[in-house]
């Protein structure tokens, strides 16, 4: 579903935000991208939905070679990918309904379909009672749900989420994680960038790609990767 081969990304200058990253997510996978702040998690997600071009390497998303994708093809790729942005990117002065419906509007869906579908995804995220509220009046957790509802409204085959639990308290973090697991259970590939290791421990069967200064330092099944890293960190602390 998502394949990266020796991908490099430099934003200009000789510093690489991503350095020789090779990583795969198959259909139905739940993939965590983790690593400290500045490791390149956001950059990786941006490459996948064509918000940034890779400097070098190959990227395949649903069989499409992004290096060869023309500008005119980008919108159609993006319709297959739902993105939950770190800063939500919601229109604060618009209603919950309008924000979620926008994804469907841009594909030219008829009004009746949009209404039905928006209510359906708002039910999924538990916001069906607030469809007429303005987004700027919602709590952080609620805004996060609106962002998730918008990301899944167009039935994407991939959902990308950038630090979706960044500013939320523990209880709501778990609820949000549970939402992504539900989306994943319905067959959608989920890629979730987070620096929160607790989150990863909650999904032991997930895949993990660990970045550090743009390099992939560990990859595999969550349970094993986390155990390895713990051992490594303990031994390095022992040395010190």
């Amino acid at each position, binding site marked *: 579903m998502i394949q990266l081969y020796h991908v490099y990304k430099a934003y200009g200058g000789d510093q690489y935000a991503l350095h020789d990253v090779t990583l795969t997510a198959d259909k139905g996978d739940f993939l965590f991208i983790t690593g400290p702040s500045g490791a390149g998690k956001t950059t990786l997600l941006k490459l996948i939905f064509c918000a940034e071009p890779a400097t070098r390497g190959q990227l395949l998303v649903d069989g499409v070679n992004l290096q060869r994708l023309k500008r005119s093809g980008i*919108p159609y790729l993006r319709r297959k990918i739902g993105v939950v942005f770190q800063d939500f*990117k919601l229109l604060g002065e618009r209603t919950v309904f309008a924000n979620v419906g926008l994804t469907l509007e841009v594909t030219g869906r008829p009004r009746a379909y949009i209404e039905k579908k928006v209510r359906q995804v708002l039910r999924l995220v538990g916001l069906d009672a607030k469809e007429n509220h303005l987004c700027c009046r919602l709590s952080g957790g609620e805004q996060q749900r609106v962002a998730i509802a918008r990301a899944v409204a167009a039935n994407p085959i991939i959902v990308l989420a950038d630090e979706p639990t960044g500013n939320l308290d523990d209880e709501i973090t778990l609820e949000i994680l549970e939402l992504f697991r539900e989306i994943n259970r319905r067959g959608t590939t989920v890629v979730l960038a987070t620096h929160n290791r607790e989150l990863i421990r909650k999904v032991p069967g997930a895949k993990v790609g660990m970045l550090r200064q743009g390099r992939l330092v560990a990859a595999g099944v969550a349970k094993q990767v986390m155990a390895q890293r713990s051992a490594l960190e303990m031994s390095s602390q022992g040395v010190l």
Partner: protein
Amino acid sequence: MRLGLLVYFLRKALGNIRTNPFLSMVTLSTIAISMLILGLFSLIYLNVQQSLHQMGGELQITAYLQETVSSEQAKVLRSKVADWPEVEGITYISKEQALARFRSQLREYAGILEGLKENPLPASLELTLMAQYGRSGNIKELSTRLGRLPGVAEVQYGRKWMAKLRVFVEVMKLVGITVGGLLLIATIFVISNTIKLTFYSRREELEIMRLVGATDFFIKAPFLIEGLLHGLGGALLAAGGLSLLTLFLFSHLDLPLRLAMMAGSLPTGQLVAGFLGLGLLLGVLGSMVSLRRFLRP
């Protein structure tokens, strides 16, 4: 394109206009004023042009006769000139006929003739030329030939005056094209600037639309329609304004009779259609200019 989609774009365009109605008003008036000025120029130009054309078709030459020429001599002269190949028709106007015509044509000045004992108007021969001899070279040559005939005092033709008018019309045209061109460019700039401003006030939404898979066309279409609506609206205003203005001008101003008469036969419908077409074009151009500049990633 699906009708539903068109309605959607139209609604978005109207929404854009509604978010900044003042800006729309300014745009509309700028377009209207530019087109009004352009329209006035073309109206006057067309008028004068048409009058010239009609006068050109008459091709009249008048040969005034000396006082000493008797009416018999004049008639001999008339039949002689009538045989020239350039001459289509020729009429003898006696002193009395000239006076009568003067009285009936210029009623308000008739009084100045009352005090005179003698009729000061000369007798004349009025020639109409065949259309193919209407070039000014022919006319000049012919009038010299006429002037050399015994008994002819003076030859007059409308050419000098018409040549001046023609130069005036050409200058008008040049000024009109220059001013009109500048105004049209300004109009395109105003439309594109309006769109730029709406674009900026909506950039957050447009950015999000792009991120969730909107095509360039989908994002552009409402702005194109907005420009189009402004162009059309401005054109309608200008057409209305021009109609009112011409009505006013021709009923209140003492324009030369001929010009006033021409106005009735002007292709007003075509002018309005032209305005609308131009408005559409300006709108599309204006929005395309801004979209090309501001829709780059």
